[in-house]
Each structure stands twice: as structure tokens, then as C-alpha cells.
């Protein structure tokens, strides 16, 4: 008579790393996250259009900032997510790290494209040009190209575990661009204004403009978190489908 083996107690790190457990705990949080995202967007848009003044210099085009700054912030936040996922892949071989990196890349590209698009539409009436090859804009365009390169790499490899290690190295190398974007406005003479929110001496704008900016940034960040969790779930299930399809072929052959 056989006795069932006792399941070893997993430490917290193993628990996080287990894709099955991730699928279990992430399922009930998707809908609340989506609802919270929608609510914060509603509040943010209300502030952006009905409860914030026109800027004394920019006029109403300041309202473009309420979608430009959050998408620009996400273009770097998503890369940071991929950066830490890459470390998780290379150092700990964390099974969810490469899933996280793969799930994030297309969203990073989308938010970077939106930041460039809204920046151009703000620049035309404010600076008189849609585009200028200055430090901030050029380094952000390079970020978009890095994202597109990483997405292409994911599609190049059949073996996704091997792809994860190669792409993790590329992601770490590409991360050099993030401080370049951040400090480009300090290092080079640029059209883009310097840092105005995250400053040691506090934001340089009044609360009436800072509030919609922060609420919209929270809304976009929640959107990314919701979509990222969902995309990770889809990627885990997609790998499961691949395994089952291989299993089916093996069953058919035997």
C-alpha cells in the first residue's frame, strides 16, 4: 500500500515562482484591478477637462500633458519592469521572470509610441515643430526601437527559455538608454523642459495642474499592471498549450 507523499512546504520565493500558483492568485484580482483602473481614469479625465485651468503660457495644450507625461513615464516604467525581470531570469532562473519580460515588451512599445505621438502634437503649437532631433526625443525614439527589437527577438526563437536568456542580456544592455533619457534634459541643450515633477525641491507646478497629472499617471500605471498580469496569465497558458500540443504529437506517434 502506498502512502501519498507529503508536499514539501514551499518558501515564499518558490511560491511566487510557481506559474500554477500565479494563475491561481492572479485570477480573482483582474476584475477589481480593471474596475479600479476605469474609476481612476474617470476621475483623471474629469480633472483634465472639467476641473483644471489652462496654463498661463501653454494655454489649453497643457491638457495634452495629462496623457503625454503618464505615457512617457510608462515607457520607462515598463522598461524597468523588463530590467528587473531580466535579472530574475539571469540570476535566479525565475520561471515567471521571462514570462513577465515577454508580456511587458509590446506594451512598452505601445506606450512609448503614444508618448512620442502626444509629444509631437503638443510640440507643434508650443515650440512650432512636431519633431526636433534633441536629446530627450531622440533617446525616446531609440527606446521605441529597442522595444521593437526585443519583440522581434522573442519571435525569432522557437525555444522560449533560450530566448529569455538572450533577451535578458539585450535588455540589460539596452537599459543604458534609460538614464540617458532621464538626464538628457540636463546634459544637453534641449527644447524639452527639465524635470518638473520628481525634484528634490518639489514639483514646479501648481496643485491644479499637478493633481490631474498625478491621477492620470496613476490611471495609466494601473492600466499597465492590469494588462501585464493578464498578459502573463495568457503567456503561461500559451506555453501550456504548446506542451499539450507536443504531447499530442508524441501520443499520435507512439
Amino acid at each position, binding site marked *: 500500500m502506498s502512502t501519498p507523499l507529503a508536499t514539501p512546504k514551499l518558501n515564499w520565493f518558490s511560491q511566487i515562482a510557481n506559474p500554477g500558483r500565479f494563475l491561481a492568485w492572479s485570477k480573482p484580482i483582474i476584475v477589481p484591478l480593471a474596475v479600479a483602473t476605469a474609476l481612476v481614469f474617470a476621475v483623471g479625465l474629469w480633472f483634465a477637462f472639467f476641473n483644471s485651468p489652462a496654463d498661463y503660457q501653454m494655454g489649453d495644450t497643457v491638457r495634452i500633458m495629462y496623457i503625454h507625461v503618464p505615457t512617457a513615464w510608462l515607457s520607462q516604467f515598463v522598461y524597468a519592469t523588463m530590467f528587473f525581470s531580466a535579472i530574475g531570469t539571469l540570476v535566479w532562473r525565475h520561471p515567471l521572470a521571462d514570462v513577465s519580460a515577454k508580456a511587458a515588451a509590446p*506594451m512598452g512599445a505601445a506606450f512609448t509610441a503614444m508618448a512620442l505621438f502626444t509629444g509631437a502634437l503638443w510640440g507643434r503649437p508650443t515650440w512650432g515643430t512636431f519633431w526636433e532631433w534633441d536629446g530627450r526625443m531622440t533617446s525616446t525614439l531609440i527606446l521605441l526601437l529597442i522595444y521593437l527589437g526585443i519583440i522581434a527577438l522573442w519571435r525569432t526563437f522557437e525555444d522560449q527559455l533560450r530566448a529569455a536568456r538572450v533577451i535578458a542580456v539585450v535588455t540589460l544592455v539596452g537599459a543604458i538608454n534609460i538614464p540617458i533619457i532621464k538626464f538628457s534634459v540636463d546634459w544637453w541643450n534641449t527644447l524639452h523642459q527639465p524635470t518638473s515633477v520628481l525634484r528634490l525641491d518639489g514639483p514646479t507646478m501648481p496643485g491644479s495642474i499637478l493633481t490631474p497629472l498625478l491621477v492620470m499617471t496613476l490611471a495609466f500605471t494601473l492600466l499597465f499592471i492590469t*494588462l501585464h498580469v493578464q498578459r502573463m496569465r*495568457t503567456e503561461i497558458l*500559451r506555453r*501550456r498549450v504548446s506542451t*499539450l500540443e507536443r504531447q499530442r504529437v508524441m501520443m499520435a506517434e507512439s
Partner: protein
Amino acid sequence: MIALGQHADFIIWAYAGVTLGTLALIGVVIVQARMVNARLKTLEAQGIRRRSGRSA
């Protein structure tokens, strides 16, 4: 709705573009999730299950 001033076109285009991009992103995420779930269900209906026997 407030008046958007002399540069209203730029503001409307910016919001329209981001709204379209965001909705497209959400749409793609939902469609991909449904496709993978449907494929998984089809395989399981054919009796092909993971060796560990767990289902998602």
C-alpha cells in the same frame, strides 16, 4: 465640456490617438486571452492533459 482654445485640434487628435491606442491594446490582450483559453479547452476536451493533472 470646456472650450479647448485655439489649439483644440491638437488636443483632440492627441486624446483620440491615445484612446485608440489604449483600446486597441486592451482589445488585443482580451482576444489573445480568449484564443489561448479556447485552444486549451479544445485540447483538454480531446483528452490531452498535463501529466501533473492540474488544470488552470
